[in-house]
């Protein structure tokens, strides 16, 4: 085991600027219950007793340490997801994939139930992704383009893949130890896939804030495909609106907008036409909706399949006459995520997800128009 080697690979040329002291101070001052998550699952209620004033100031064991001893790996994942979606944070991190590294900054704020977030590429493309309430914009200076769309605000509450009992059949989730990462105490959780349809994770979760300080995405053989490491991270009580404005000048850019996306519907009985005949084991449909994407006026069917950890979106749109001469099958990669599209009966079907290419390909080729099969029932 290599210890304390200069690991500048993922953090080239950067001075570490840990705001851990500040973060802890904010934790204590701003959110007295920082170490007791506001989540309301019965499991968490059992293990997170209310703190007396004496306990809060006890030097022997911090409340964080007390509660953290008792959580299962799956509960750590839940705490982590909760932190990522409900806390304010502002950090810079390195994103490693495919042999090269880039630095990004992420700012996230939840205020009066409204989520604002901004992701900025600090070098290279200068692209920015900004979401503020219902407005979502992608600034692509290297394409001189801005994609703008509106999403219904309740979408942030729809939920993302959640680990449940069924998930354990497809992933081995365990805590492999504790590790100090840049003077922070972390729980190291591994999520190992049991087959080659999906990827795995290694997560270094801060014991106090539950933020994932380091994340590795691995394939079924344990090879690291993608790595994100925070170089600096602060959890401020307040983040100004100005932090969510783009830096890039959009003079001369083209703007591709769309109207308000159609509201989402939970998975309903398949009265509508599209569904997957078969799915990889463990995957089930979780959401079905229709929306209009920026730059077009055509509605697109959007299905979401998940196995509790990974999710795959399938988009179905009517093939335009012009696109009819396009290659029938195309694949693409966005970091570790895969995309595959194919054409069936005059419809273009595209699957996108954080899974291997073979999986999105499988799902995309299984999607057919049908009227009779109930939603979410994978046929074997």
């Amino acid at each position, binding site marked *: 085991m290599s210890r304390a080697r200069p690991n500048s690979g993922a953090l080239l040329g950067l001075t570490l600027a840990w705001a851990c002291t500040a973060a802890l101070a904010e934790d204590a001052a701003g959110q007295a219950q920082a170490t007791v998550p506001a989540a309301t699952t019965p499991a968490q209620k059992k293990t997170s007793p209310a703190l007396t004033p004496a306990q809060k100031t006890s030097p022997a064991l911090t409340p964080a340490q007390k509660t953290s001893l008792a959580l299962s790996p799956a509960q750590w994942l839940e705490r982590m997801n909760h932190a990522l979606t409900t806390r304010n944070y502002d950090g810079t991190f390195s994103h490693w994939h495919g042999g090269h590294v880039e630095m990004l900054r992420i700012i996230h704020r939840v205020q009066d139930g409204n989520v604002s977030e901004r*992701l900025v590429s600090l070098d290279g493309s200068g692209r920015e992704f900004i979401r503020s309430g219902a407005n979502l914009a992608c600034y692509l200076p290297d394409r001189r383009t801005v994609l703008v769309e509106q999403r219904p605000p309740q979408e942030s509450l729809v939920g993302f893949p959640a680990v449940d009992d069924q998930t354990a059949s497809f992933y081995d989730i365990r805590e492999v130890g504790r590790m100090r990462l840049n003077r922070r105490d972390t729980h190291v959780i591994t999520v190992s896939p049991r087959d080659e349809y999906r990827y795995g994770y290694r997560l270094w979760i801060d014991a106090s804030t539950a933020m994932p300080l380091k994340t590795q995405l691995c394939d079924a053989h344990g090879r690291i495909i993608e790595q994100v490491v925070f170089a600096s991270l602060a959890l401020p009580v307040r983040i100004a609106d100005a932090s969510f404005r783009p830096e890039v000048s959009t003079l001369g850019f083209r703007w591709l907008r769309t109207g308000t996306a159609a509201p989402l519907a939970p998975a309903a009985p398949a009265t509508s036409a599209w569904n997957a005949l078969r799915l990889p084991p463990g995957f089930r449909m979780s959401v079905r909706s229709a929306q209009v994407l920026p*730059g077009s006026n055509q509605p697109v069917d959007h299905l979401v399949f998940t196995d509790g950890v990974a999710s795959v979106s399938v988009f179905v749109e009517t093939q335009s006459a012009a696109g009819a001469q396009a290659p029938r099958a195309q694949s693409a990669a*966005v*970091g570790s995520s895969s995309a595959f599209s194919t054409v069936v009966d005059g419809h273009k079907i595209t699957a996108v997800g954080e899974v291997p290419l073979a999986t999105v390909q499988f799902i995309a080729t299984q999607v057919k128009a049908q009227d009779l099969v109930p939603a979410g029932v994978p046929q074997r």
Partner: protein
Amino acid sequence: MNEELDSQLSAMFDDQLPPSECELLARRLSRDEQLKARWGRYAVMGAVIRAERGVRLNAPLAGRVSAVLLAEPALGAQSVAGALPRRGLRWWQPVAAGALAAGVAAVSILWLRAEAPSSVASLSARLTTPAAASGASVIPASARERGGRADSYVVPPSPAVPAIVVPSTELANYVVAHSMFSSPVARRNLLSAFMTSEPAAAGAEEPPDDVKSAAQ
């Protein structure tokens, strides 16, 4: 100022000058510092348009290379392993559509999508300016300029017109739409990758052995 010469320089920079004129201009370019400087500024313009951030636009790189080469032996005709074949390529000949499509399929490129020429109209339609953001505005078809210059040329309509490569905002839309349904960590990773994704040039794989050994 020789406008004809400068116009040739611009065309040569874009690989759109007939071979015979290229030979002549290449000779002038290699000797004329003013011409070289202009050529270098053309490259700077391109870099700015492509928003190649982080790259220094006034780097003395070219000067340094030139200085190093002064000490290098000149390459002589006898050292050329095999003279470059004269291809007799006519610059206006379109690339076969099949070859381009194959190239796209072989490399998973985020931003390339081959579209049929009949979609050219939609390409025009997508080139909106902010002022016209409310609806797609089409570039006004300018009156055809016929006759006049000897090198005016109109592409004849033919079934073999090459596929036009345009950026696919479609995949970008899918990525963003999907990101709303990923787990928070996966979503962050996906959007990060999207923020940093770069189009790879065709054929950008390991170099073949001969180049490897030559380049040492």
